[in-house]
């Protein structure tokens, strides 16, 4: 029985996590009389294979392999900004249809076991986009006073393909000990699920509504040294942010991961000229049935600009290059396979957020300057967005709800400093291969001038329907 435990684990790992996608006709008999009709037929004489062949099959391709995914959807949304003071189903404040079709195309070339080149292109409909480009700027000094000088600009409209190179990198190694990756790549830096305050390397932050989504990374040279015989790892990064730059402008980062007991601990740092130095600590492990993770980041100075005051001339912004700023986060994930349930939660402390008293004073100033329309003013939204110090996110997903083709998920995210938040309830229906329907309802809640109320133009309710059409991986 134990002889088959590994096979059983493979089966369990695979069948539970993997949706049935590929199919082929194959029948196998469970007739014991036929299966065990004679002792002679029980042993196959198939020869054993070579492990080198097994590795080659994974690491060397005879030709370039193309993979990718297509995502098509037709979405519709209706929004009521303040349904609590007069709700009329037929009179949403806004509504719209969002058809979308996008493609991810990966190219994987593996000429030898030690070399791999991978690229990923992304394109989406509309396949062409019109962008406005600045073509000239002239400084105009219309003397005499009291007229102020100004800059006169000219621009033109260009059409460009909605196509981007999301990843393009090469893997190579030195003696199977030191592994390099050079090119545009996603960087695995923090361990956070909804928030990763330590991650300053990737070009985009985690989208809490899609935390598993791949994020765009920079052009990076990465060196990875797994300490053989252990599961400790050392990583070093050189990040390039411009095609023409000085050597001293390269951002450098390094981290070390240590597998200790039932935990993996990480320590790292990030340096760039004229930017705040950053240090980080990470930890991941499990307690009982719950996976836990946390990260802490300390920076000397900040890239953030704060609103210092708001006057008739607009907000006065200030930076801080000298103070120490701490950000910390901790979260959990719990999965109950029998119930098809996954729960995840995370708390974030953002030391760059405003103190409550400061924030309240600034809101008061904004109201004084902007008047009664402050809440819908972009400047006010800029002040409010990310203004808190305490945030949290929680999600619960039932991959099978009442029926194996139905799923239910609840997501909530909130600013604990001003007790505002946003919650979304989604019901998914896998109609058949290639088509699924998702119905969702989102609610924003909080007190007046709280973050999620301001960002949602009020205690908004949004109802959405999304029909996923023909989405597939290949």
């Amino acid at each position: 029985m134990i002889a088959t435990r590994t096979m059983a684990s493979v089966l369990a790992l695979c069948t539970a996590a993997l949706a049935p996608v590929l199919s082929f006709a194959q029948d196998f008999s469970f007739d014991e009389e036929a299966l065990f009709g004679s002792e002679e037929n029980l042993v196959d004489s198939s020869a054993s294979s070579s492990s080198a062949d097994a590795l080659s099959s994974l690491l060397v391709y005879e030709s370039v392999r193309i993979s990718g995914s297509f995502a098509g959807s037709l979405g519709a949304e209706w929004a009521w900004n303040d349904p609590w003071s007069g709700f009329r189903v037929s009179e949403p404040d806004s509504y719209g249809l969002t058809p979308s079709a996008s493609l991810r195309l990966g190219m994987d070339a593996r000429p030898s076991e030690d070399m791999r080149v991978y690229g990923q292109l992304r394109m989406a409909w509309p396949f062409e986009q019109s962008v406005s480009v600045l073509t000239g700027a002239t400084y105009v000094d219309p003397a005499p006073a009291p007229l102020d000088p100004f800059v006169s600009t000219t621009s033109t409209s260009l059409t460009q393909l909605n196509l981007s190179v999301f990843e393009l990198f090469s893997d190579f190694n030195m003696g199977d000990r030191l592994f390099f990756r050079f090119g545009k790549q996603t960087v695995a830096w923090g361990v956070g699920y909804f928030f990763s305050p330590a991650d300053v390397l990737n070009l985009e932050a985690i989208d809490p509504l899609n935390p598993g989504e791949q994020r765009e990374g920079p052009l990076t040279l990465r060196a990875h040294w797994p300490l053989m015989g252990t599961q400790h790892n050392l990583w070093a990064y050189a990040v390039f942010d411009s095609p023409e730059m000085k050597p001293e402008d390269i951002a450098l980062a390094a981290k070390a991961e240590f597998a200790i007991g039932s935990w993996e601990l990480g320590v790292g740092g990030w340096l760039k000229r004229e930017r705040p130095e950053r240090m980080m600590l990470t930890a991941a492990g499990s307690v009982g049935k719950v996976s836990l993770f946390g990260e802490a980041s300390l920076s000397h100075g900040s890239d953030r600009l704060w609103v210092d005051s708001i006057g008739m001339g607009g907000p006065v912004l200030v930076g801080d290059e000298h103070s120490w700023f701490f950000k910390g986060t901790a979260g959990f994930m719990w999965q109950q396979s029998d119930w098809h349930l996954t729960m995840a939660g995370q708390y974030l402390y953002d030391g760059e957020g405003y103190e409550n008293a400061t924030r309240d004073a600034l809101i008061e100033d904004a109201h004084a300057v902007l008047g009664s329309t402050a809440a819908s003013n972009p400047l006010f939204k800029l002040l409010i967005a990310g203004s808190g110090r305490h945030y949290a996110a929680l999600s619960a997903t039932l991959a099978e709800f009442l029926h194996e083709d139905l799923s239910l998920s609840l997501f909530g995210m909130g600013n604990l400093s001003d007790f505002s938040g946003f919650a979304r309830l989604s019901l998914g229906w896998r109609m058949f291969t290639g088509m699924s329907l998702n119905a969702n309802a989102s609610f924003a809640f909080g007190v007046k001038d709280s973050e999620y109320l301001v960002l949602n133009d009020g205690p908004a309710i949004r109802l959405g329907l999304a029909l996923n059409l023909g989405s597939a991986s290949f």
Partner: protein
Amino acid sequence: MKRIVCAVMAFVVVSTAVYAQDAKKILAELDAVQDFSGKDFSALYTIVSQKPGEKDSVTQARMFRRDNKDQFAMIILLPEVNKGQGYLREDDKVWFYDPTSRKFSFSSIKESIQDSEAKGSDLTLRSTADDYDVTSVREGLLGKVPVWILDLKAKTTEVPYERVVLYVRKDRTMLLKEEAYSVSGRLMRTTLYPKYVELDGKMLPSQILIVDELNPGERSQMTMTEQSVETLPDRVFTKAFLEQVNK
């Protein structure tokens, strides 16, 4: 008459003791089959799952093991949507690599691993002899093959089934059938092992048929091919390898 009864009882006692001894030896031999200490092991597993009203689904994974260091690596090859997902284990630590997000996630092996039915214990070598008591041994036939039928009762809650009945070929220690029962005595799963291959002097099941007794019509076939005990490079059991082989 008394003498006959005593003789029969003595025979039963002696033969039961012999059977119990044989049973322990059989369990030890079954345990030893899976132990590749001192060598590396790799194989390709293909699973075809059938559910009523659904098309067959195919999953394929390549697995690597180094028992000396309690290391395990597995790469998913099919279906395409999951291709490149990888598991790495050492002792009680498990890393899962998701090629979609390009992230590793870490958990201890004590509990479920990621979004799967697998428990950490599924990825560890466990000993049937240590985990179960033999409650009875009898002879029988499975098809036309003479077998020992061992009834086992769990000694620990770490194992997935409270009671297991094993059908082991008599002339050569090969598990041919396994019935797994819940605490309430309900038959949960029947597993058949109709094909074996010989590797490094050990008989390994190359075809496994699994019947889910709780869900009528749900069954799976798992086949093992490309098995090898050749030495694997150290890098196979690193994060670097999981990254290298992803899609």
